[in-house]
């Protein structure tokens, strides 16, 4: 068994806001081993980014409260002081954000921004940092890195900016790379390149990856394990195989139905899940997905636990429905044959 890098146990994140308490992350747990890719999927507002940023201590603030544990190589990152956290950020955990344009500082050269990360953690001179930067840019596939290193972010295309962000995140050789919807702002052909790049670099740098997306299709090739999040909770968790071929949660079906698949007949129109995510201040009682679930029945007024309900061990879900019933009916949603697609 590979080295276990990260162990998240019952993580809770709450924010005090004017309108009340936002329970952005509600008791999620997962592990991550070196060399693996963990996919986190869910709609907008399901708490994916908050989870990712909490791992790096980026959600800290006077209005935030955390419970549970985030064990990185045995150290609980939630207990690490702000100052010590600096040594983990960039050095042990690197992150790429959704929008590469706004995530890079427009007034500094690409090279300066990457070198800055290197120099924050290693005692290297300007020249050495620059040489490393150029090498990193080459590794992430930027043509002509010797001259592009002095460009400003606005001189890069969207895809190149995201590559530069990846170079920055990997500059200090972190053990974990978190990619928070790195492809959402890019067009489709570039999306695939970025995913491929992340997967290749993971091996080159011998790290683990947490890949966040709202589009299951994006991680179909690279994820080892997948977590499906809804309203701050994990609603289904399993290997890629489990989630793609034996999904147990009507919500997951909806997500699967919303991606075009080559191995299934193309639906008339792309399915989207009806309704909108629940309030995180006053979440619905029972199963959080109940108000939007076409299969809901009276038992759903009680919240189902995250349990193993199928033959495969490690495949967990939060749904009361009978497994056979689900296997019979899920294809209607996934392949877009059902009526609620209208």
């Amino acid at each position, binding site marked *: 068994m590979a080295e276990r890098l990260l162990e998240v146990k019952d993580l809770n994140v709450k924010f005090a806001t004017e309108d009340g308490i936002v329970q952005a992350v509600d008791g999620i747990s997962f592990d991550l081993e070196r060399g693996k890719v963990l996919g986190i999927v869910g709609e907008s507002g399901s708490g994916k980014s908050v989870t990712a940023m909490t791992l*790096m201590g980026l959600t800290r603030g006077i209005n935030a409260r955390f419970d549970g544990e985030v064990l990185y190589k045995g150290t609980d990152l939630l207990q690490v002081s*702000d100052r010590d956290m600096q040594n983990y950020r960039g050095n042990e955990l690197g992150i790429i954000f959704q929008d590469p344009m706004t995530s890079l500082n427009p007034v500094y050269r690409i090279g300066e921004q990457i070198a800055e990360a290197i120099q924050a*953690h290693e005692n290297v001179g300007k020249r050495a940092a620059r040489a490393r930067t150029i090498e990193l840019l080459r590794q992430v596939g930027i043509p002509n890195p010797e001259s592009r290193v002095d460009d400003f972010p606005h001189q890069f295309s969207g895809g190149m900016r995201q590559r530069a962000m990846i170079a920055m995140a990997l500059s200090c050789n972190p053990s974990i790379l978190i990619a928070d919807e790195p492809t959402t702002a890019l067009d489709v052909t570039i999306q695939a390149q970025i995913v491929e790049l992340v997967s290749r670099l993971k091996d080159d740098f011998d790290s683990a990856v947490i890949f966040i997306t709202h589009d299951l299709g994006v991680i179909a090739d690279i994820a080892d394990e997948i977590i499906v999040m809804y309203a701050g909770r994990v609603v289904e968790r399993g290997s890629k195989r489990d989630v793609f071929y034996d999904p147990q949660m009507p919500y997951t079906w909806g997500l699967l139905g919303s991606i075009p698949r080559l191995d299934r007949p193309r639906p008339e129109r792309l399915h989207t899940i009806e309704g909108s995510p629940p309030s995180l201040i006053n979440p619905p009682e029972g199963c959080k997905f109940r108000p939007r679930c076409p299969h809901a029945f009276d038992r759903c007024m009680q919240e189902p636990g995250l349990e193993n309900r199928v033959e495969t061990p490690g495949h967990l879900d939060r749904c009361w429905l009978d497994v056979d019933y689900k296997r019979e009916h899920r294809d209607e949603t996934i392949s877009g044959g059902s009526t609620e697609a209208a």
Partner: protein
Amino acid sequence: MLLVLLAVSFIVYFIFIVIPGGDPAQRIAGKVATQANILAIRKKLGLDQSFIVQWYDLVKALFTAKLVSYSNQTNVVDQIKQGLPATFSLAIGAGIIWFGFGVLVGTISAVTAGRISDRAITALALIGISMPVAWLGLILRFFLAGDGGSGVSWFPDGGYVPLSANPAQWFYHLILPWLTLAVLFIGFYGRVLRSNILDTINEDFVRTAKAKGLSSRRILVKHVLRASLIPIVTLFGLDFASVLGGGAIITETVYNLHGVGWYAAQSIASEDLPPLMGVTLFGAMFIVVFSLLVDIAYAYLDPRIRLS
């Protein structure tokens, strides 16, 4: 820019010749003018001709330094030139003080947002921008300078000593005017910078900087302040230009600094319009020139503009 200056001069023409109505020559001549003055003005400004010609003549008179005040027959342009040292000294010193302290105060306030120091600074800044400059100047002068009757005379009672004559006295005489003028701006800049910083802190690139593991100090100075200061530079360019161009009339008047603004103020009571015309145009000129400089500074500070 020339176009703007032309338009500015037209506004000046409009204010002084067209708005008041009546016989402009008599008006320009002011209350103490003689019949001969009036005739001279009428001829010089071509007031019997069409308005384009009038306007042209006015501008020409100004730029060829031929505009003359009728309360004491002095040349307006010469008088403005004489006021420059005092005005520039006031502007430069006050500018340094208000920019420096404004940035300091705004940064401290933003970094400690919500805490005591922030509240105290916010309260003081609000008081600072709420005091009329004339009153603040008078009170400071009364309590701290000269024979004011307060018994304290730490500072000289107004007036200006040229830098070339006596640098120490120059400095000494300017301390109170600098502070008086700076108070309002410190309060204002501090508040603007505070809110800029608090906005910038939420920018994605600041989050990236944090995620890189930079120290809070480095994030603040390199990433947050740099971005937050860009709008302040515009503000400073305009305000500084305004003060350089004689806009600090009240401060100059209160402290009897014989600068450009003071000169303009002197002609109000006698309704002597040529000096006002001259100074107004002069002040606007500075703002126009500095707007251009600000644009250049902007391009330097923000590469997106520089390279496009």
